[in-house]
């Protein structure tokens, strides 16, 4: 029987079939953060059960943490309580925790790979939809709800039904100024926000294979934005080099045998398959209130005929935009470079290289929020902090920050923010905030010009 990469990993982890749909699935790695775990720990306590396997559980505080003055107590009492409760729970249940001020702390999906915990062929869950990020390593990684977090804490398993499978192939070479973020925004714009619901997506093709691990994480991260349960990419030499670099002294022989078996067989069948060409992809920007409402940066907001539902009318009104409008040259107020989509060292390097010796526009406030303390440190080591600060960016401490506005980092109502995060929902970055999703490179170009900018034009003039 020919099998997909997904089948191979899934089958190794089924403990038992419950009915013809639902299975008990064993989880190799469980990540935890402060927002979706307190009720689950509470449940364990009420049921008087212990954590099933603490070695397979890792926690961090990220959603609520301030990005300024992280050494001081958290000002907001509710945020503080949630972060403290995570510490209390982790102490009581003996879970390893990278809490506030820990040198390993950061956004859960940034630190997992960074710590070498995320490895090919694993099943990984977290009470967070962007768990799909870890699929970049060739894992079945998906977000779960709090009841399921409790399932995993209590049994190291979740009850799941096997999703359908989709493959998305991208072939050819990317044009200058086009990055992984543009690939995924392009795919989501093509498929729509519900386009992959019920499916697990394998990304394949030479364009995907040519990408670094960071770029692959950006792509898998946003799988959920088209409704997919998760996304994954077959491990290859890039993957192995990344994973091995975390533990250079470990004996990798047996593991490598397993990793090398992780690919989709030649004639394996998918429920759906899409093909895209890299040359068709341009720098992307969103104009609406879901990640599927994206266009080429020099394109126009779709016509009334194309965009006529009540939801899309409401979206345009919320964004202060109209049908057939060009987005290019739209003045902006904020730039946010961060989130589990684009806050890794490669993203910061790219931005720093581009803005070196330049200054951001006076009408823009721009912040860079690294994904983890380790990314922060690395940036300092490479002198990126100075480059960014000299250009007028404010460099903050790590966390989710303005990606979801649970801490103080919110975008004021009515203001436009070009953001490298993954969601432009109404109110996502604060009540009334207007988010335009883009790549770090595009965000940097917009910051310098104070308006929506086609980074390709800027590169040409360099």
């Amino acid at each position, binding site marked *: 029987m020919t099998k997909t990469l997904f089948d191979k990993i899934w089958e190794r982890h089924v403990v038992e079939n419950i009915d013809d749909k639902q299975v008990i699935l*064993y989880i190799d790695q469980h990540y935890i953060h402060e927002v979706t775990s307190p009720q689950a720990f*509470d449940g364990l306590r009420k049921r008087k059960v212990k954590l099933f396997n603490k070695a397979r559980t890792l926690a961090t505080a990220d959603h609520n943490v301030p990005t300024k003055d992280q050494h001081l107590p958290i000002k907001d009492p509710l945020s503080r309580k949630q972060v403290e409760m995570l510490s209390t729970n982790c102490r009581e249940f003996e879970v390893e925790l990278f809490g506030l001020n820990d040198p390993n702390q950061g956004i859960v999906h940034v630190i997992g790979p960074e710590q070498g915990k995320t490895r090919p062929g694993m099943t990984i869950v977290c009470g967070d*939809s962007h768990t799909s990020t870890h699929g970049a390593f060739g894992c079945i990684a998906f977000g*779960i709800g709090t009841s399921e977090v409790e399932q995993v804490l209590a*049994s190291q398993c979740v009850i799941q039904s096997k999703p359908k499978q989709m493959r998305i192939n991208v072939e050819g070479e990317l044009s200058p100024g086009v990055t992984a973020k543009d690939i995924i925004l392009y795919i989501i714009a093509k498929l729509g926000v519900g386009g992959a*619901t019920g499916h697990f997506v394998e990304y394949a093709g030479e364009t995907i294979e040519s990408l670094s691990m960071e770029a692959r994480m950006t792509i898998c991260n946003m799988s959920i934005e088209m409704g997919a349960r998760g996304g994954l990419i077959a491990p290859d030499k890039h993957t192995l080099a990344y994973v091995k670099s975390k533990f250079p002294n470990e004996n990798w022989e047996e593991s490598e045998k*397993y990793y090398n078996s992780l690919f989709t067989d030649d004639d394996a069948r998918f429920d759906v398959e899409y093909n895209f060409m890299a040359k068709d992809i341009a720098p992307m920007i969103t104009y609406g209130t879901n990640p599927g409402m994206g266009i080429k940066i020099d394109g126009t907001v779709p016509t009334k005929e194309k965009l006529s539902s009540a*939801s899309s009318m409401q979206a345009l009104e919320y964004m202060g935009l109209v049908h057939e409008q060009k987005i290019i040259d739209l003045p902006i107020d904020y730039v946010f470079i961060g989130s589990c989509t684009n806050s890794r060292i490669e993203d910061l390097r790219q931005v720093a290289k581009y803005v070196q010796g330049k200054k951001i526009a006076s009408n823009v406030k721009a912040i860079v929020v690294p994904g983890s303390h380790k990314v922060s440190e690395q940036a300092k080591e490479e002198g990126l902090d100075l480059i960014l600060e000299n250009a007028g960016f404010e460099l903050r401490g790590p966390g989710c920050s303005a990606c979801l*506005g649970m801490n103080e980092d919110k975008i004021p109502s009515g203001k436009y923010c070009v953001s490298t995060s993954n969601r432009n929902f*109404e109110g996502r970055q604060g009540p009334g905030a207007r988010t335009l999703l883009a790549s770090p490179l595009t965000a940097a170009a917009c910051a310098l010009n104070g308006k929506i900018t086609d980074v390709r034009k800027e590169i040409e003039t360099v």
Partner: protein
Amino acid sequence: MRSQWKNYRRKKRNRDSMKFTQIKSTAVPLPMEDIDTDQIIPARFLKSTSREGFGENLFRDWRYHTENTQNPDFILNNENFSGSILVAGKNFGCGSSREHAAWAIKDYGFDVVISSFFADIFKNNALNNQLLPLTVSPYVLDQIFNAIEENTQTSFEINLEEQTLKWQNSSDIITFEIDPFKKHCIINGMDTIDFLISKRDAIKTFENEHVVY
């Protein structure tokens, strides 16, 4: 502040009263598509460490203006509509995995959400909280919206045992799908965590033989 929540029909329930086999109720229509969990319950209300009370902030930014006054145009603030069934446009519950969205809907007083299409994580979260995500075809969804538009007091009947849905003034009986195990859990008020705890020995055996590379 509290008095503003006049339509707020929060029900205090224990697990036992949450299980159900049949529901007869009027419905609240919300024909928007792609309603994400950030709209169902905005992130700033996720700071609670308990499961209770989220109904107060269900659809917060649609129900209230920024200055905290009620938005009379939003359906939950319209006294003509009530009931324990919410009917929504396709791709309901997309976005964040926050189970708080399911808690908020249940806590507000809904037992069923009908749509033509649910986001996967939301669907699981709903089922784990005895909130029934009931999927119908786009055609049936339109019919339901029309029926409510014609008569806001249209009564709907859902029989989970039989997996059927019907409504007043319609002779059609619609059947819907639900995984047998999930159905069993809702009908019997069975808790999936207790179920997995009962499997711990089998899981241990599996774990002992399972290599994580």
